[in-house]
């Protein structure tokens, strides 16, 4: 059996709870036939509005619960499961509240912000389903910083190899440096390139052979070593970029999810205020 996740927590208990609650609410909605048509101002409308508000406040409370490390009554996994499934259910509760009437106004703005929050959350869930396996730092690999240090030290090795001022032997031939110039690169970290997965490829065999054949005999061995180092550097850079990409996707949705949820709270407050102000 698959490992229990926050989605499948206790055999999807929160999914089923939300599903049946939604089902019941839909049935009540369909049976309800209020004077003047279904809208947020009927008894069912007010009730569903209250339920949706309570739901939103519960979802916001997750931010507090998450940091309550000594809370023992509930598990964070259970709360996260409720957070996700209730959030998804709210997508449907609000139209039932408003009688499916939407417009260009602060009321619909609150719904749009809620949808943005929820869908960014769903996006986050999807990222969490896939990407953790790609974050090497969580799977025994180095962190970005370690990778950067490795790139830097291997670059230093390469530089040392090219340098002739070590006192040992003659300076490297121009052909050796030309080969280095062709196959090496100065790594400029770029998030944009990482997100587009523009990772350096390993050196092609043909250019390897061409370069080696241009070297004087006495430098052939160093040339082979250099190619080894260059390939290692390319691999390290690729890994760093992959790490940056995974880390970005697994976290960036939160930068939509959290601020928009606060915007939603503001819009929700204005919505409730305005409908009762102009009752």
């Amino acid at each position: 059996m698959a490992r229990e996740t926050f989605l499948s927590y206790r055999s999807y208990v929160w999914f089923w709870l939300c599903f049946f609650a939604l089902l019941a609410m839909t049935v009540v909605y369909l049976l309800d036939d209020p004077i003047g048509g279904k809208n947020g101002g009927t008894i069912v409308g007010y009730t569903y509005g209250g339920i949706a508000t309570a739901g939103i406040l519960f979802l916001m409370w997750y931010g507090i619960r998450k940091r309550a490390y000594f809370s023992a009554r509930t598990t964070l996994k259970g709360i996260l499961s409720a957070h996700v499934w209730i959030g998804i259910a709210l997508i449907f509760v609000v139209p039932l509240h408003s009688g499916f009437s939407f417009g260009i106004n602060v009321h619909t703005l609150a719904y749009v912000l809620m949808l943005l929050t929820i869908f960014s959350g769903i996006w986050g869930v999807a990222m969490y389903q896939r990407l953790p396996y790609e974050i090497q730092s969580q799977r025994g690999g180095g962190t970005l910083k370690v990778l950067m240090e490795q790139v830097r030290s291997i670059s230093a090795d390469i530089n040392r190899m090219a340098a002739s001022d070590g006192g040992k032997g003659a300076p490297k031939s121009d052909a050796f440096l030309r080969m280095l110039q062709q196959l090496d690169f100065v790594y400029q970290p770029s998030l944009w390139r990482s997100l587009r997965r523009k990772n350096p490829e390993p050196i092609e065999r043909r250019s390897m052979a061409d370069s080696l054949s241009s070297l004087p005999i006495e430098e052939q061995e160093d040339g082979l070593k250099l190619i080894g180092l260059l390939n290692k550097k390319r691999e390290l850079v690729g890994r760093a970029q992959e790490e940056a990409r995974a880390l970005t996707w697994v976290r960036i949705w939160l930068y939509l999810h959290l601020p928009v949820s606060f915007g939603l709270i503001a819009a929700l407050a204005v919505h409730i205020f305005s409908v009762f102000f102009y009752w």
Partner: protein
Amino acid sequence: MAFRYVTETVNKNGSKETSLKELDQSEILLGRGASSDILLTGRLVSLRHAQLVVGAESLTIQDLESLSGVRVNDQLITKVELHRGDVVKIGNYTFTVTRDDGVWGVLERRSDLAQEEDAEAVIDGQVKKLSFQSYIPSFTVLSVILSLVVVGFFFAAPLSGTNIRSWNSGPISNAHKMIENDCGQCHAEAFTRVRDAECMACHSMSDHAPSLPALVEKHPTLGFRCASCHMEHNGDAGIIATDVKLCADCHGGLDSLLPGTGTPEIPSWHAHPEFRVSVPQPVGAEQPFKKVSLDASDLSDPTKLKLNHQIHLEPDLAGRDGLVTMQCQDCHEPTDDLHEIKPINFERHCSDCHSLEYDERLPGQSVPHGSPDVVYNYLYAQYAQLFLRKEGVEEEQPSSRRRMPGRTEARLPDIEFSRASVNEQARNTEEALFTRTACHLCHFVTDMPDAGAGESRYAVESPAIPQKWMPDSTFNHGAHQEVSCESCHVDVRKSEKTTDLLLPGKENCYQCHAEAHVAGKVDSACVTCHSYHKPLVMEEDKKRTIERILMTRSGSFQASASRSSVGESRPQGSESRPQ
């Protein structure tokens, strides 16, 4: 020739160290190779990279087909003459050309800082470049910005009177569009539901039923307000409530709400009792009308006329101008708006066929369609006129009678008249009209032998044709004009008696009209036929001007405040519920 190679190094602590190498040759080799005069390192430098040629007045640099080339003032060159102050770049080295006391030289500036930069800081910088967090503001900043935008545009702005539309919870009904942006017109008080006073400022309504105001007063918790039924901000859907249950919630149980009144319980259109017609009662009865169900056995049209629909609808009847086949609307003429049927009028609907000529010796002469006294006095006057004319007392007047087609010019009949015979003629003709011919044909006539002079000796019962049989409902004939009259008023062609009431019952309506959502039927609510309360014309002093309705368009609170400060703009007594 002398040449100076000066190296200036800036230490970490900022102090400078200068080293000088003096060369005394005219060709100076720069490169990585051991034979170089100025030894440069780095992967961008060739073994033999460039050569300086030092002259007394000139200094020239030449690229020796190097790996990465030579740049002078950022221009890639092969061979060029240098001047004081020129900047020469080879690989990672930068030289500035100097000429002091007539001696050429180059100055190389090095910075230990640059070379031995904190590796830690470099790596941190690189990690930062790969972290998206360094490109966007923090959670807190984003949250605060977004919340402020929402509050600013959708709370502060509407409160100050702009962007008030963003609070509109739904489309306003078409009739109220001109006050759409002036919330205060209806929402006069914050956090209070729209009060009737705001509705009654423009609208005046009749009561629905005499019992309703009492009911409202007795049960204030019912919270009957205009807006309980008239829902705004739902487009045109809610403003005129058509829900059956709005009526049915009282009318479905009127027997318990108003016990003893005998008002029928009507929970739905389907359960509607058979229609009841208002039958006029004889003069002196307790009520002028009595409601009788269409399926009652004692149902009868009390109209005092001898009308036979069957005969009237037979083809080829003798009309004034030849044969006619009558249609319903020949007598039952629709009103101009096609909604209703005009009252039956003798001159318009009967006289074409039913002539009131009274004396065959006087063709074309008709008595007026009036009361018996009018008829008798007319007859007397006509015969007296003839008598007088015969006597020659009165000049013969030029004939103003219309010549009837097909008849010869009327001329005075050859009758011997005398004073005594005028009265006799008048009475004889009267008797003929009222007991045998014209009047008798349609009307119920009573003989009153002791009539005085100048009075008819007959009385005609007023026909009293009811104009509206079902005054509590509205029926639009025009809306049904594609359907033949007889498809609802069935058995008209079989009706021989005036007492036959030829009105359609509810089963007839059920053919097309059903409650909502029955396939193939017209959705019909109570208000399809009944109106809850008829709008009344507003009293003149309560009316407002268009200016006053529109002047506060953009406003919200200031608007409603200024409006309530104009005391007279609130109609008197508008605070109370409709009475």
